[in-house]
């Protein structure tokens, strides 16, 4: 004990004052505090900087994207009482009903009504699909047929561009005058979330790509999660430590670092060779992305399994639990939060992936949402990529809106995963 409380002779003569009270010591102490302050300042600055960048991204995205959730519409009073139109029976499917209305001359009637109230020139600038909007509303609410109603009808993309101040110069006076009358304006377009891709930016929607993404992610999760977790459990709990398992470990780590487009080529060469009829299908897309996600889940899963305290395993084993009971009753539940964290990261990466899906044909123009896992589909990031390539200015805003939808989807997906993780989190 004596060696600790008094300075040892190796420090020289017994000092007049204790070593910890010399001016040199106090100067050193000051420098230590200064270093700490500096470190805290830099840390805080880093966080402020990242928050600022995030905020900038979100604000610009929202500003640009809000326009994408709107479209230019003309407010047209329509006297249905003047129309010689009878509604098809309610038993008809939507498609049949709409076709029946088309055959009865609804498109021409709508155009005539527009020409009557807004002029011949304006009626030519209605979107070619404007009558569909009317048809759908009619089928929804048959009582309209006996009244005069004001409907917001989409304009052509040229008039929409003119309203924004560019596009054809000869349309701009018309756009200005209609806007001054208050009949032409950009209005919220709920259909953006329920329509699919179209060549006309006024008619394009995100639902097809969103549904494609949901289906693809379901396939990815259904394949990558169980396979990844089982692989992680086997490697940690059962596999012997030898050259082969070392080789497998290195391979999995490398697999996680392989550029995603290589997985696309693999999907093209293997999955599409096996199932040539499923080009562009969410099933194939999901399988390809699962290949990419699985190594991430295996790596995080192994770390999570490794972090389960050995004392819990020993406790269960000493009670006579069989190895599989130890794994499924104790190790897996305790490792689940960690596994879910890895799954979030892997799935988020898969959701944002474009390159591998281009290789397996998910970049096709798909105008109808997929009905199942084997229908041709596209996904959100590919849709964004395709739209960002369009010349039509209307697609610029649609692109930003699609990005917002993608980010919201990501947020929802991660929210669910974090909720699950917190539910399973346990302390020991």
């Amino acid at each position: 004990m004596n060696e600790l409380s008094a300075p040892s002779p190796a420090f020289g003569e017994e000092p007049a004052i204790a070593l910890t009270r010399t001016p040199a010591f106090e100067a050193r102490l000051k420098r230590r505090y200064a270093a700490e302050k500096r470190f805290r300042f830099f840390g805080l600055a880093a966080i402020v900087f990242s928050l600022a960048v995030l905020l900038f991204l979100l604000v610009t995205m929202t500003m640009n994207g809000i326009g994408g959730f709107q479209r230019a519409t003309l407010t047209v009073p329509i006297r249905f009482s003047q129309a010689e139109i009878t509604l098809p029976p309610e038993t008809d499917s939507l498609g049949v009903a709409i076709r029946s209305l088309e055959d009865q001359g609804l498109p021409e009637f709508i155009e005539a009504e527009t020409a009557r109230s807004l002029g011949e020139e304006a009626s030519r600038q209605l979107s070619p699909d404007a009558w569909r909007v009317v048809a759908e509303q009619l089928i929804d609410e048959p009582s309209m047929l006996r009244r005069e109603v004001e409907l917001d009808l989409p304009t052509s993309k040229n008039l929409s561009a003119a309203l924004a101040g560019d596009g054809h110069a000869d349309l701009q006076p018309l756009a200005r005058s209609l806007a001054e009358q208050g009949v032409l304006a950009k209005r919220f377009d709920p259909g953006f979330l329920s329509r699919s891709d179209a060549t006309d930016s006024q008619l394009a929607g995100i639902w097809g790509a969103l549904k494609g993404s949901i289906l693809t992610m379901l396939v990815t999760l259904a394949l990558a999660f169980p396979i990844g977790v089982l692989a992680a459990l086997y490697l940690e709990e059962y596999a012997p430590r030898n050259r082969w398992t070392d080789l497998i470990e290195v391979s999995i780590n490398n697999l996680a670092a392989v550029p995603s487009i290589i997985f696309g080529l693999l999907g093209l060469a293997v999955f599409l060779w096996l199932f040539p009829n499923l080009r562009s299908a969410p099933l194939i897309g999901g399988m390809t992305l699962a290949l990419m996600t699985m190594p991430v889940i295996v790596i995080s899963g192994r770390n999570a399994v490794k972090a389960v305290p050995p004392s819990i395993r020993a406790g269960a084993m000493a009670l006579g639990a069989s190895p599989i009971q130890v794994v499924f009753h104790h190790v897996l539940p305790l490792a689940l939060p960690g596994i879910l964290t890895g799954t979030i990261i892997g799935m988020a990466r898969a959701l944002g992936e474009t390159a591998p899906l281009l290789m397996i044909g998910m970049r096709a123009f798909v105008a109808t949402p997929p009905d199942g896992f084997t229908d041709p589909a596209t996904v959100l990031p590919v849709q964004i990529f395709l739209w960002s390539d369009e010349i039509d200015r209307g697609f610029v805003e649609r692109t930003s809106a699609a990005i917002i939808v993608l980010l919201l989807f990501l947020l929802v997906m991660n929210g669910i995963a974090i909720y699950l993780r917190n539910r399973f989190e346990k302390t020991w």
Partner: protein
Amino acid sequence: MVTELTPNTEPKMRARDVSVFYGDKKAVDSVSIDIHTDYVTAFIGPSGCGKSTFLRSFNRMNDTIGAARVEGCIELDGEDIYKSGMDVVQLRARVGMVFQKPNPFPKSIYENIAYGPRIHGFAQGKAELDEIVERSLRRAGLWEEVKDRLSDSGTALSGGQQQRLCIARAIAVEPEVILMDEPASALDPIATAKIEELIDELRGRYAIIIVTHSMQQAARVSQRTAFFHLGHLVEYGETSQIFTTPREQRTQDYITGRYG
């Protein structure tokens, strides 16, 4: 070396020339010992003397360490537990264990106790399981303290309560032998006293082996004491004899505090 005592029954467990290796290192060197249900047996000795390793070979927990290898023979009711075809799961249900650090499962108190009986299918229905849980907790002297909060997490208990919970968890499987690996070394004196009281109450119902660092504890709870040194069983006899008139010089040196 087999130390003959005067047992009035057949030994519950019998170890003959047991050696345990970690890789090339011999941790336990041909130890033979008899364990009876009538009394508590204490293993004492300085750190690294192999007493814990030897204890863990009684329920084959050494199997879980890849590099460990056991030679010799350990019998439970005359049956070699290392013979091929021996069911380790069944063995561990018959030979329970309590560890140095309390290791309750991160589940409710009820689930901690019910887990063993449930995986072995001891209880038909909830009522029977409730009964087992209550009986085990009562036997471990924990019932009065936790009966109103059985659904609380086992990890929320104090250290001493956690250790008694682990003992109750071991009892719930109705083992024949309970191995205790320094069960009180992580606990304060009051909690230690409770554990020692509990061990005394459990004596006779189960064959108990306790590994301990503390010679006072061995003297308080055990009737037989085995002194280990460098992997050898130096001396085995009645606790009172070991502590008052040890036959071996090394035992004498250890219990009088000359090393250890």
